[in-house]
């Protein structure tokens, strides 16, 4: 398999210099700015509020019992599900995650320039 990569160490110095960026990706580089990333939060919030208001004026044809009394019910549900599961992630990991060599069959493939894999091997030796 051909792996045409540069090592992360070589490219990390100038991650967005433009020379190594695909031309079609250039217009979207603004997405990597810290300010944009920080403020991206407001986009779903505004959308959530608009859709919740719309939901009040256009209720569902087949709501769950008592759902009509909770404005933005699906937004609240989606938010709570993500938060609930997301907060349990560490607990899930505690019970389910084991070292990659756990079954002794060899893990899934690593890239040739994997820093993590070499660090892991270094730890093991």
């Amino acid at each position, binding site marked *: 398999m051909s792996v045409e990569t540069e090592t992360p160490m070589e490219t990390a110095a100038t991650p967005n210099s433009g020379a190594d960026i695909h031309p079609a990706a250039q217009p979207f580089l603004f997405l990597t700015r810290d300010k944009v990333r920080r403020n991206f939060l407001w986009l779903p919030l505004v959308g959530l509020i608009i859709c919740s208001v719309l939901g009040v004026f256009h209720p569902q044809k087949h709501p769950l019992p008592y759902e009509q009394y909770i404005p933005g019910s699906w937004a609240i549900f989606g938010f709570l599900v*993500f938060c609930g599961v997301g907060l349990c992630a560490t607990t899930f990991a505690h019970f389910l995650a084991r070292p990659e060599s756990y079954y002794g069959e060899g893990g899934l493939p690593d890239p040739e320039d994997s820093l993590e894999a070499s660090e892991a091997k270094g730890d093991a030796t």
Partner: protein
Amino acid sequence: MIDAIPLLAEINPGFWVILAGLICALLPIGSLRKAFVIAVPLIAGVLIFQLHDPTQAARLGGVLQFGPVELTTFRLDSLSLIWAYLFCLAGIINGIYGLHEKCRITDSSALIYTGAAISGVLAGDMITLFIMWELTAISSVFLIWKGGEQAYAAGIRYLAIQVLSGVMLLTGAILHAQANGGDFTFGAIGLDSPGGWLMLLAMGIKCGFPMLHMWMQDAYPKASITGTVILASFTTKFAIYALARGFAGEGILIWVGAIMAIFPIAFAIVENDLRRILSYSINSQLGFMVAGIGVGSAMALNGVAGHVFVNVLAKGLLFMSVGAVMHRVGTAKASELGGLFRSMPFSTGFALVGAMTLAATPLFAGFITKAFILTAVIEEHHYVPFVLLLLGAAGMVGFAEIKVPYSAFFGRDSGRRVKEAPWNMHLAMGIAAFICVYLAWPFGGYAQLYALMPFEMKYAYKPYTVDHVAFQLQLLFGVLFAFNLFLRWKRYRAPQRAEVLDVDWLYRRMGLNVSLWASAMWTRLSAVTRQQRNRFLGTAGRKFYQTFSPAGAASEATPSGLAAVLTAGLLFIVLMVAYIAR
């Protein structure tokens, strides 16, 4: 074409694809093989189109008589039609995606696998269904083994489980046919007989019922890049077809489906391998389909058929984009990736289309098909399963459909600058993405999807109503907002290298350890009890010898008449026991 060659109307079109796969195995010229891989599913699709007669309820052909058993090897009706078209389309797309891979085994096994899946959904009897069931398993295992040395054990486990499923299907089919006067026609089966339960279990293995699902997450991520894309298209969807045909309206499936939709979330959140996350996502989406089959109304079954169609394309799209990443970077581990949209913008775009389709975003086909199933569930007042399905939808949006593109293409910049995917991968992804968008297009697009749906409904479901769009967007924005909050507050669990334990731990670890322990115990026990065992075996052997040897008591001059009387007596006892037991 059909009029000119009447034989074509008698033969299951999938058989031609299988035959082409066998020929492919002998073809040494790579470009000719590639032409076969793309052209043959296309020709099969055209053949099915020609054979389909909308005025007929079903077209039957290839009737074979084996003693009392009659087999109908070809049946084309409205239910099998959509699956047959889908498998032909998936075969073409997969063929294009794998154009760069010069491998005779992949080409021929992909064609045989595609052909077996097409033949299976077009089978009119349970014996043909069983043969195709097993052929899909046997042909696809080569795609897993092409994943390299680390895939060998997973391939063996996959094969064992799939063959077990086939054996259960055959046993169930025989029991079911026995209870129905020897009729092997594959129709509604139900759960009135042990045969029905066995067949349900067999199909449950293949479509990933909870606790029977682990083969999928074990084998899919270990297959070759093209292999995973092909595997994700057929096996589970073939099983969904069989369930829809045999067990539509079985209430237990609503609950099974609801549990299937939610349990993969816990694994997806911890998993590091993107292809394994997508395998869990398949499991969750299959839950929607199983629940729809359990509801069994026309709307639900149309939703299932539509969702299978859309799911193969959208999930395939995500598998293809992750495959493109793997092709360039060499891994699908989220902990090694990030920021790849800078190098692979087109693959990123296709992955986003796939993710938005699976997340049921308006203007993407999943928005329509998922709504069919959810509406059918709530129309029948199954409130708790509805909430569970919604939970599954929200959870998988957060921890699969957002996580996969985010980890690979956005997130922290891994610093990797690679080439874009090869043109053939782009073409395959482009076709799948176009169909995902086209089938949701409000001005005539989704009407095409409706035209493929197998059952007539009481009313034409309108997907683009303000309430449907608003509530679906509420769910998506709610999840997206929480995701962004987690990122900002650094509560989002970064991908970490790990082997995630699943039900297969029971036989890969515990089962193995128990058998090792039993073996060690036996060795010790054997050493301690050797004397007693030898003494016991010696005494028993002597007694046997004294009784049955030529010089033994049984060979002494007993009158042969007495022996005849004894034999007759034994026969009488056996006959009486058999009579009473009956």
